[in-house]
């Protein structure tokens, strides 16, 4: 195996690699052993702390309702944010300079501001200026913050999706006499949406991760917030953190895998123009996005054979 950094190893390099493997393995084992000892010293491995997770009460009372709220907020944010983002993304491609300028400013402004500020602001705004009940307010605030930020990011995705289409599509549409609006709605947008699907699913991972902010800062009872209640009840801080982190990892792993499957499927499919906006493109648009490194060819996960 060779890469840009090194050639296929010869006998000497092979020996050195074996030595390095052994040394690294020993270090890794020492690290794991040290973690195990520290956990054991602080009595974090006693079965009493972990037992709640084998019973249904912990799941039905705390974790699953929390997970449901996380998914609800994420889904709402995506469903509301996507059309909004599409409007701004198309506006940024307008032929009129002032439309481009206004939508560009709005998009760049909301991309520059932390989601947390938007959530905090929305929370206060709803409590002062509207009659949204205090029970619903955290959900409203979280979704509002997520929508404002992600609509801005999705606007960039839509723009990149439309720009990724071959120029001939627009030219052909004009040639058969379609107007600008018709070209956008019946030629460009349907193809762009298909090309964008993987990037949109990748953005869902970011949204899911950001819902956790609402749990800590404005009391939205999502998964991380439910962990606090659970840990207060069973007095198992460390195990609850590990279980909740594992739940986030599994959830996001499913989303990332789906995104990269979608990307591969669309790239293979013969019906499209071949324009696909994948996870790698997503990282440029939103660096907080989780790229599809799980088993995607481009990402080079475990043994994917990309060399590096």
């Amino acid at each position, binding site marked *: 195996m*060779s*890469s*840009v*950094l*090194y*050639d296929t190893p010869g006998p000497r*390099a092979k020996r050195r*690699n074996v030595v*390095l*493997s052994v040394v*690294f*393995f020993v270090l*890794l084992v020492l690290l794991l052993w040290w973690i195990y000892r*520290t956990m054991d010293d*602080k009595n*974090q491995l006693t079965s009493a702390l972990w037992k709640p997770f084998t019973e249904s009460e912990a799941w039905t009372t705390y974790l699953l309702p929390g997970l449901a709220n996380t998914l609800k907020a994420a889904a709402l944010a995506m469903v509301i944010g996507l059309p909004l983002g599409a409007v701004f993304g198309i506006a940024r491609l307008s032929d009129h300079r002032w439309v481009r300028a206004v939508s560009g400013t709005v998009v*760049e*402004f909301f991309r*520059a*501001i*932390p*989601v*947390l*500020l938007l959530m*905090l*602001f929305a929370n*206060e705004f709803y409590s002062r200026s509207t009659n949204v009940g205090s029970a619903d307010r955290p959900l409203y605030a979280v979704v509002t913050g997520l929508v404002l930020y992600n609509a801005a990011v999705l606007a960039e995705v839509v723009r990149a999706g439309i720009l990724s289409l071959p120029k001939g599509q627009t030219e052909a549409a004009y040639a058969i006499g379609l107007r600008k609006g018709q070209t956008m709605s019946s030629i460009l947008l349907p193809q762009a949406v298909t090309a964008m699907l993987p990037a949109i699913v990748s953005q869902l991972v970011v949204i*899911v*991760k*950001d*819902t*956790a*902010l609402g*749990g*800590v*800062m404005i009391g939205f009872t999502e998964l*991380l917030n439910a962990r606090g209640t659970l840990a207060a009840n069973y007095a198992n*801080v*460390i195990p609850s*953190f590990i279980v*909740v*982190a594992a739940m*986030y*990892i599994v959830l*996001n*792993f499913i989303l*990332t895998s789906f995104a990269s499957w979608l990307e591969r499927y669309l790239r293979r499919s013969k019906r499209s123009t071949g324009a696909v906006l994948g996870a*790698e493109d997503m*990282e*440029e648009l939103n*660096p*907080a996005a*989780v*790229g599809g*490194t*799980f088993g995607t060819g481009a990402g080079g*996960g*475990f043994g994917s054979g990309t*060399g*590096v």
Partner: protein
Amino acid sequence: MPSPYVTHPEAREIVFDFLEGYDVLGAFWMTVKLTALSAVGSLIWGTLLAAMRVSPVPLMRGFGTAYVNIVRNIPLTVIILFSSLGLADIFGVTLGTDDFKAQGFRLAVLGFVAYTAAFVCEALRSGINTVPVGQAEAARAIGLGFSQTLRLIVLPQAFRSVIGPLANVLIALTKNTTVAAAIGVAEAAALMKTMIENEAQTLLIGAVFAFGFVVLTLPTGLILGWLSKRLAVKR
């Protein structure tokens, strides 16, 4: 911290009096300190991780890949909260200080470094991947050794293409430091939460803090974006 002006409604006539009694600049200075220290730390740890991910040793590659994929899929809030409630409270990690405030700050930096390093690693790795294999093959063909190939051919090209992605990571980190408010670090978002709850001018307070972050992130993006375009290897 309630404002001294709460009892004097007439004082609100003056537009910016809500800033009085709050150390807005101090809060943003805390944000800058968090960002700078975490950036340095994650650059070091991220480089080490990237070195593992591109190394010829499968075990190191596996570790690097596993670290990146696990850490990137956990919400930052979980990591930051764990550093305080888990590392500090349960495991007694004090990071060399008894002062509660300093400890919160250091724990937050630790969390940011652990999280951001995964993204730094990916940026560096993709930078190395942009260098065509032919470049290294040509270098070997003219008789350059491993270190010469790395030093003269691969790294100079990789560094140039890495500036853009790293700038994006830095901007994301600047915004992410607001999560430190979750463990009581007195940075911008924490102050905004206090102010917005105690003062009447919701919109103005929001605008001031939004403006602060635009000021922090926009020049970074513009300067580094310009630099990355200027230095980009034309292929």
